[in-house]
């Protein structure tokens, strides 16, 4: 018996020690330099939807609600919410333990001022368009009244696209881009050297959300171990990789497939896969022939081999998936998948025969991102087999987007949708409402989107989203080729990193 007790105790000690290294390894200190490909246009989080800004600002600022690991909205600076029966009044109790980087305690006035500022100059006005009034209903309580019920209101409030960051009221009174960079997040701003870097330092006065048990998406418990985090702007991919190998940066936000393979075999580095990071979309311009003809669009949809497109455009890091949302989303589903990835040339020719297309060149506009050019090239070759003559016009993003926002000069346009599927069904529908992306109104989409936004019942919302996705395929409004990912690389000394939509530098530490 005694033997068993001793053995049991030994096992318990062994288990405790076995688990200990991870816990003990967490240590404060260290400076991490993150190589990012683009400079942020602004660190005023509310006024820009640039990913380069989000990468940095979400380390500094927090929002009332934020997205958890599965992109579900959860309280961050709010303690929770009470929604009135009619769905129009939201009462947010605000956490009392939070202090801004300038030493000021967070209160309802800061939240009201921040929301009002976003309503005036926020980069994604649609996020707050439903708000009728915002007022402080207590020192630590804010009441938001909506013009009409909006099922996606908490989704919007927690969107990381152009975050509805909470600033001190004194800063929220300032114009776009004129604020002091003062937030409540785990890191505070030190300096921004244009075309060079942004440096942050750990905020020791940070109050983690008491409801958070660990790192959880953009929410949860954001423990900062590093002394400083510097985001260095390095547009050259080769230079970023060289800097990582030379030990001058500790994290590279994106590397290409061959580099990931090479670094992956070196135990000094760790490769991280962010999967999915975006979905590859091929749009039709429905304002003009031949894409104004549903049979033409269905013919193209039937002809395309999505595996071929994704394997060439995003070799080593793609997945075929008919859903317009990411796996893990509460609304994820495969409606319409019977028309996805058919690669059926016979059916395509039949449908094309029923269409008004009788030959002639159609233009595929594409920006100079390699994966997008590859997508256009594969589509061009595939459509040649059914007799559609595609001309590819490559320009840089400003040129292509200018053309793509107009109803003439193009038939096809491809690029990625990254943040929309992460944000959820409302954001996935939005680009097609009012014919924004396809240049011709689609009454069915407009009807579904309006109903979805007003519907508060979860089951009926899901049914509406299924109808939307099915319609995308039945009318070939646009085509989704597949999901793509991103390779990231770090020094193996950077521990406990977990890929997400931004390279989160909380919850990670550096080993000596």
């Amino acid at each position, binding site marked *: 018996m005694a033997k068993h007790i001793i053995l049991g105790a030994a096992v318990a000690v062994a288990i405790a020690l076995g688990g200990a290294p991870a816990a003990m390894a967490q240590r404060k200190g260290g400076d991490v330099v993150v190589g990012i490909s683009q400079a942020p246009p602004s660190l005023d989080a509310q006024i820009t939807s640039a990913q380069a800004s989000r990468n940095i600002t979400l380390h500094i600022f927090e929002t009332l609600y934020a997205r958890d690991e599965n992109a579900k909205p959860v309280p961050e600076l709010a303690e929770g919410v009470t929604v009135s029966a009619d769905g129009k009044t939201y009462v947010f109790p605000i956490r009392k333990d939070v202090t801004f980087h300038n030493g000021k305690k967070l209160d309802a006035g800061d939240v009201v001022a921040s929301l009002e500022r976003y309503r005036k100059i926020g980069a994604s006005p649609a996020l707050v368009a439903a708000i009728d009034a915002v007022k402080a209903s207590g020192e630590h309580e804010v009441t938001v009244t909506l013009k009409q019920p909006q099922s996606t209101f908490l989704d919007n409030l927690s969107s990381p696209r152009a975050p509805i960051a909470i600033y001190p009221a004194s800063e929220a009174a300032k114009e776009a881009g004129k604020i002091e960079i003062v937030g409540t997040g785990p890191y505070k701003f030190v300096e921004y050297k244009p075309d060079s870097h942004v440096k942050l330092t750990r905020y020791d006065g940070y109050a983690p959300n008491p409801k958070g048990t660990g790192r959880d998406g953009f929410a949860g418990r954001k423990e900062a171990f590093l002394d400083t985090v510097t985001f260095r702007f390095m547009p*050259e991919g080769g230079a970023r990789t060289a800097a990582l190998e030379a030990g001058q940066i500790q994290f590279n936000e994106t590397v290409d497939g061959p580099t990931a393979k090479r670094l992956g075999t070196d135990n000094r580095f760790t490769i991280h896969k962010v999967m999915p990071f975006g979905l590859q979309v091929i749009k039709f311009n429905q304002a003009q022939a031949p894409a104004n003809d549903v049979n033409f669009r269905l013919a193209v949809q039937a002809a395309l081999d999505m595996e071929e497109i994704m394997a060439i455009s995003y070799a080593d890091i793609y997945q075929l998936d008919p859903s317009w949302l990411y796996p893990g989303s509460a609304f994820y589903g495969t409606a319409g998948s019977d028309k996805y990835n058919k690669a059926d040339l016979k059916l395509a020719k039949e449908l094309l025969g029923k269409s008004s297309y009788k030959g002639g060149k159609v233009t595929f506009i594409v920006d100079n991102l390699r994966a997008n050019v590859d997508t256009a090239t594969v589509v061009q070759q595939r459509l040649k087999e059914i007799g559609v003559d595609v001309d590819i016009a490559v320009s840089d993003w*400003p040129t292509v987007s200018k053309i793509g926002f107009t109803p003439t000069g193009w038939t096809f346009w491809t690029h990625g949708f990254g943040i929309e599927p992460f944000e959820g069904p409302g954001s996935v529908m*939005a680009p097609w409402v009012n014919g924004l992306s396809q240049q011709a109104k689609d009454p069915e989409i407009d009807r579904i989107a309006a109903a979805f936004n007003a519907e508060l019942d979860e089951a009926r919302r899901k049914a509406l989203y299924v109808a939307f996705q099915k319609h995308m395929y039945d009318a070939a409004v646009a085509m989704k080729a597949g999901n793509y990912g991103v390779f990231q690389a770090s020094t193996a000394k950077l521990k406990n990193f977990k890929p997400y939509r931004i390279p989160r530098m909380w919850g990670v530490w550096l080993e000596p």
Partner: protein
Amino acid sequence: MGSFLIRRLAGAFVVLALVSLMSFALIWLVPGDPAAAFLDASATPQQIATLRSALGLDLSLPQQMLGWYGRILSGDLGQSILLNRSVSAALIERLPVTLSLAALALAFAVLFGVAAGIIAAVNHNRWPDQAVMTTALLGLSVPDFWLGLVMVLVFAVSLGWLPSGGFTPFMESPGVWLRGMILPALTLGLVQVGFIARMARASMLDTLGQDYVRTADAKGLAKLDVVLRHALPNAMIPILTVIGIVSGALLGGAVIVEQVFSIPGIGRLIVGAIASRDFPVLQGGLLFLAVVYLAINLVVDILYAVVDPRVRLS
């Protein structure tokens, strides 16, 4: 000298007027919309229209042109769309970075280029001459972005001697600044070494064949003395012209080198402005570079007279 300067400054003014016109023409020559570039693919037409109006892009071309000339005549290069600061401030911030990079590269190119040219000329048609000329041709043929990446792989990644990129201001730490600038300056300068070496060789060969050099030689002066004190000063005029051209090329080359080494100079500013259609920065940057080119040319012309008293600037 005075009349020369007045004539040259008047010429420079005409050139600047033409450059400013061309800079303005960029707005309608370059495709793409700054507003669309600033917003993402899901921007609504209203958002784009609002931003275009804020940027003054909805005004007629004559109105925009009048605004542009009005501003530059009053010394105002406008406000950047993206940088949240005036174009002048953005340029002045980056000027020391690019100038210090170009100056280091120029010093390197002149030192090695002139030395290599002299060695080649003195050893005309012998192996040092052929070696210098082959190396010079190789240097001229190498693209600077490729050379930069090779430098990084060798000196930063493999040997670990120097940083692979980034910039530390001189005033913050002269030592760190120098370490960070060696590779970019070498990359930028190396391509120009060959150019200067070839010109220095040709000019020295020409000078070494002159009677006064033969006389100095016949007088029994030391070979080094003949070459450096007698021949070199007279060979310097064509070399100075090349140095002037090279200085301009260095500023142009800085665009690529600053990208590769992540150096926040004017080149990088202009590349960013092109990519984002930040027209005020692009226009102001081009005008600014034109002023720098003109200043370099003027300095080179003045140096002619300093080096060779026979040259009269009047």
